[in-house]
């Protein structure tokens, strides 16, 4: 036998004997759920309210496995003689996870943070066609999206904190500056703003804006502000049948008539989102007397 063979054989025996005494590496998966890294790519969740049907994700997807249907809707001008505006309404948003290769490009590319990674991965199906997740299913995954990581110590404040520290928009042109600041801050920061205000399911990050001093987020206030939209409605072409009326009503009444709005599916069903949309409209018309959430100005700047 060649030199070194016996030591080699003995070392082989020693190695296996050593592994015998050590802990095994087996992941007992169905019994013990795996400890996944926090940013695991399990499934893609959709915040429907954030999606503007811009189609960027569908176009960038290497597998072309995102299906988006939308239609345009005309919003009547809010002031007499104003210009009617158009808006995209999302009819269908579906991701075919039998084709998806989890590259994450759609999530990176979405300018409005409508898509997020969720670490959930147990959605295997018996029928491959069931892997096509429609937007309600994609939306349900939002509940499992982990909170964003905390900001680094010493980093700049999140946009909403900065905005909250500024005087209200009505006084002087400070609001415009705030909006500009929010816009130039880069894409990173508004990300948090959107996530925290738009999704009730996500727990707020440690650095979330203080709630006492700034304006309440989106719920009640824009709803009352949305009242002016009804005034010029008469002399504009009516594109929105029932839902526009519901949007204009006070909050209490609106929740009562909400099912009607859902049926016509002109506006996204969620209450907060609806209000936010109304706020956006008002912001777009440049009504400087209104106090608006920072979120909306941000979005305006980016749109």
């Amino acid at each position, binding site marked *: *036998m060649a030199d070194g063979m016996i030591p080699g*054989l003995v070392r*082989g*025996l020693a*190695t*296996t*004997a050593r*592994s*015998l005494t*050590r802990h*095994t*590496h*087996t992941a*007992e998966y169905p019994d013990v759920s795996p400890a996944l890294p926090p940013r695991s790519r399990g499934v893609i969740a959709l915040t429907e309210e954030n999606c503007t049907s811009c189609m960027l994700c569908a176009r960038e997807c290497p597998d072309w496995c995102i299906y988006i249907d939308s239609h345009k809707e005309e919003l009547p001008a809010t002031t007499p003689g104003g210009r009617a505006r158009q808006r995209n309404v999302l009819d269908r948003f579906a991701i075919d996870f039998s084709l998806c290769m989890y590259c994450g490009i759609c999530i990176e590319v979405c300018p409005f943070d409508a898509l997020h990674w969720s670490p959930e991965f147990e959605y295997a199906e018996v029928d491959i066609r069931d892997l096509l997740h429609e937007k309600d299913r994609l939306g349900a995954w939002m509940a499992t999206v982990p909170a964003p990581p905390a900001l680094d110590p010493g980093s700049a404040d999140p946009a909403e904190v900065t905005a909250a520290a500024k005087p209200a928009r009505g006084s002087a042109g400070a609001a415009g500056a705030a909006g500009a600041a929010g816009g130039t801050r880069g894409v990173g920061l508004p990300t948090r703003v959107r996530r925290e205000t738009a999704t009730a399911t996500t727990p707020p990050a440690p650095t979330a804006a203080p709630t006492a001093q700034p304006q309440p987020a989106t719920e009640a206030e824009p709803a009352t502000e949305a009242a002016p939209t009804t005034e010029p409605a008469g002399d504009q072409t009516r594109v929105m049948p029932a839902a526009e009326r519901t949007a204009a009503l006070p909050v209490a009444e609106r929740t009562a008539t909400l099912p009607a709005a859902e049926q016509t599916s002109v506006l996204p069903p969620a209450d907060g989102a609806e209000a936010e949309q109304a706020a956006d409209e008002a912001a777009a018309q440049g009504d400087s007397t209104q106090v608006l959430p920072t979120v909306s100005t941000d979005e305006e700047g980016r749109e």
Partner: protein
Amino acid sequence: MSDLAPWVEVVLRAVAVLAAFLVLPLIVGQTEHKVMAHMQGRLGPMYAGGFHGWAQLVADGVKFVQKEDITPARADRWVFRLAPFVALIPYLVALAVIPLSPTVVGADVDASAVLVLAVIGVGIIGTLMAGWASANKYSLLGAMRAGAQLVSYELPMVLAVASVALAAGSLSLVSIAEAWKPWWLLWQLPGAVVFLVAALAELQRPPFDMPLADSEIVFGAFTEYTGLRFAFFLLAEYAGIVVMSLLFAVLYLGGWSGPFEQWLGWLWTVLKGFLVAVVVIWLRVSWPRMREDQLQRLAWVWLVPMALLQLALTAVGVVVFP
């Protein structure tokens, strides 16, 4: 049991041997599952039977029974069908004559060492039959390799056993084990090593599994077998491990000698045999398969001279310290 009618005693002994023949290989197989898994950092079977997969081999057996029994169209039908039994039965016979203690033995035969060696050699006929009758080139290659391996390794094995028999002055396994003394561990060490290596080779266990080499010739002589017949070949392999381990324990480890050997003798033999079986498994996990030429070289260049040397050493020992 001597006060029973002779035929009752025969039946009882046969049933006991058959039970041992069916249970012990399963225990070795399950041990292999578990030990091999943990040596590779795995857990092995965990579900069958509930507790750490203890019933995995039972489940495997049920699976084999359910499978279709296929005989290839161009196979030599009778030979093909008979082969698994020819491979299996010799080990059953061998198990019957290996004593666990002077009283616990299936059949007490005079020259039992010779009988065991002779019978074990018959097992290879089953492999040769299987390889020849399968009408498959891989099967034939595997059978030829198995035959060549047997021819090479039978000689050192017989020489090693001859050495112990010479030392004990008897060809009966019971007498050999009774004559055993602890210092034989050193005196018969080369013979023990030769016997263990040759036994591994006869069983076609890794690192001597050239006749089965699944990366080259599919599964050697057993390529065409399915269902229960295939399971019999597997059972023969593990029964072979049991037989060889017990034989090693009786020949080289003193069999039943140990504390309370009056009552617990059989347990000592079984425990020693089990330890040897674990070593056999350990070698399988640790070492890579040998090439055919290396395998032949090992037998003729190393094992045969070593066995002859051991024989000379034993002869000197017997003459000098009678």
